[in-house]
């Protein structure tokens, strides 16, 4: 198995469109790395450069410590699973899976044993004689993965492989691909726009936006310590609530003033926002870090009006109006709330975040402004 190293990789298309800007990251041996970001962020272009399907405008790409910028795809020892599977419609499942091995002139017996083994792992032994047309979406997905694993490549590349499946199947295949990674102990790079996929599958996540890497880290680091407002908002569902606030000092107490409410800052955040007295900041709080308060702790809670109630079974998502912002809060299912109710939320300050208005960087993490 292998490592993949991207050093200052840049992609410029005709007409000076910069799709990928100075991307640097390393995929360690046997690691499952997810590239995630909204559409047009350059994640697929990055993957296609690793595959050799796109030329690299500038920078160096190493696979297994070998510079491969000018090595054609077939000599990079990689396999790729495409978004639309790209199964050859005129070949049977067996022939689709055996295609690469036949080209590489493997012995017939070896081809058969590898295809059979892959089919067994993916539970598609029954389908080997069928044409792709006669398969369901999930089965096609498996065949596409099977075609990749029979080659036993150094690196597996996945380009949004689950985006054509329905929600239920997606959850199932997500677990299967993770299982496959554990089983094969292979280096995998996976592109998706779905942050849930990224969080559940990746050992390491690379968050991209407008061709630039925003943050690299394991799922919980990204969730708990996002370096900027974009990552904070992109990772997590429902997303983090943001609101512009002014830091003020009243009676020796540090407070944030949202316009409609003022609330004293608590915990370690006091020292963090002290330099910003009189200035504006973006305040961020995740839905689960808004604590529902049934009692009345005057001055330390935010009064809100319930607009929408979304009972999900294990939890309830509430869309609540502070007067100037709509926030999402996540509360336990045991609490009964109706639309129009006025309810109070306390803030778990240790979990709150502040972002600089200009740079949108998180205060206290990464590049501080």
């Amino acid at each position, binding site marked *: 198995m292998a490592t993949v190293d991207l050093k200052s990789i840049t992609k410029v298309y005709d007409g000076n469109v910069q799709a990928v800007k100075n991307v640097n990251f390393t995929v360690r041996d046997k690691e499952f790395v997810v590239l995630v970001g909204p559409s047009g962020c350059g994640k697929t272009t990055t993957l296609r450069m690793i*595959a*050799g*399907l796109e030329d690299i405008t500038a920078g160096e790409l190493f696979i297994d410590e070998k510079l491969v910028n000018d090595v*054609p*795809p*077939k000599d990079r020892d*990689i*396999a*790729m699973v*495409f978004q*639309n599977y*790209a199964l*050859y*419609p*005129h070949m049977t499942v067996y022939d689709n899976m055996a*295609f*690469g091995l036949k*080209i*590489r002139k493997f012995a017939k017996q070896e081809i058969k044993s590898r295809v059979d083994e892959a089919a067994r792992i993916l539970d598609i032994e029954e389908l080997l004689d069928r044409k792709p047309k006669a398969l369901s979406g999930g089965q096609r997905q498996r065949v596409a993965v099977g*075609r990749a694993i029979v*080659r036993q490549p150094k690196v597996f590349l996945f380009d949004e492989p689950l985006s054509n499946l329905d929600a239920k199947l997606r959850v199932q295949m997500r677990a299967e691909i993770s299982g496959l990674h554990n089983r094969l102990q292979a280096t995998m790079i996976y592109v998706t726009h779905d942050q849930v996929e990224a969080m559940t599958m990746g050992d390491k996540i690379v968050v991209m936006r407008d061709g630039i890497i925003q943050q690299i880290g394991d799922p919980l680091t990204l969730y708990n310590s996002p370096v900027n407002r974009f990552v904070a908002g992109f990772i997590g569902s429902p997303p983090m609530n943001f609101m512009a606030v002014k830091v003020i000092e009243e009676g020796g107490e540090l407070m944030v003033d949202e316009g409609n409410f003022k609330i004293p800052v608590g915990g370690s955040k006091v020292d963090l926002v002290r330099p910003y007295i009189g200035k504006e900041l973006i305040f961020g709080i995740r839905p689960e870090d808004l604590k529902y308060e049934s009692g009345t702790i005057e001055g330390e809670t935010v009064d809100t009006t319930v607009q929408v109630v979304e009972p999900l079974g294990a939890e309830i998502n509430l869309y609540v109006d502070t007067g100037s912002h709509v926030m999402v809060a996540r509360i336990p299912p045991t609490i009964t709330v109706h639309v129009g109710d006025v309810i109070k939320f306390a803030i778990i300050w240790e979990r709150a975040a502040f972002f600089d208005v200009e740079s949108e960087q998180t205060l206290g993490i990464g590049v501080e402004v």
Partner: protein
Amino acid sequence: MADNAPSVTRTALVRQAGTSKEDVKRTTRRILFGVFMYGVLIFVFVVSALPVVWVIMSAFKDNSAILSSPFSLPNQLNFQAFVQVFTLYNFQTYTLNSLLVASLATLLSLVVYAMGAYVIARFDFPGKSLFYILFTLTLLVPPHTKAQPIFSLILNLRLYDTKTALVVVYLSFGMAMSMFILRAAFMAIPKEFDEAAAIEGASFVRTFWMINLPLAKTGLATAGIMMFLGHWNEYFYAMLLTASAKHRTLPLALAFFTEAFSYDYTQMFAALTVVIIPGIVIYALTQEQVQASVASSGVKG
């Protein structure tokens, strides 16, 4: 609720009455449209297919029956005229010549045009549009205007009065149309197949041959059939470039045949049938693919 009930019923009744009136209107319109549609279909059939049916029918009747009651059905299935056409007038040679020339020219040009269309459909290179426009421009040149240069060329190549001459000349026929159909066929194939093949290790030639060519089979069938029929029926260059009976193709043979034996209508119609039938059979066999391809090339071309 009870107060509203009568008014609801009344509205429903009015609506029902309106509906039945509209129904009658709609039915009349549908019938009129049906009559018009069948009228057009029958007209097209009468002008295009009936003469062919009449020719085939007449090949089974004797001369006097053809002259006295031209539209009657044949009394018996008499293949004698066909036997005579083949035994007395050397038609097997002409048929073989036609088959050989038309098939060879079609196959060779399909291979060449498919390669050209694939490159134009898949890759960007300087002058691509110019090439494509030049190919298309050949449509605007009437084939007969090229007679003199082609004749001189064939003469200088010492190919005059050979079947090779016909194959070579026919190769260029149908280029614009075939390129158009094949380009559309290749463009309809997702690029991911090429990319997947590239990653699997397939060379350019293998990707073309094993992935794209089989997937473009409707386009290939269409272009092939159209070219084959064109070559099969071609008369002008066959006359211009061959002299001996040894290299004569069917349309040419037919011309000589009608000149020499125009009084024997049965044989003439039998000979005509021999020329007509293969085209019809081939088209009938591949009709579905041809139609699918013509329809899709219309959208994507």
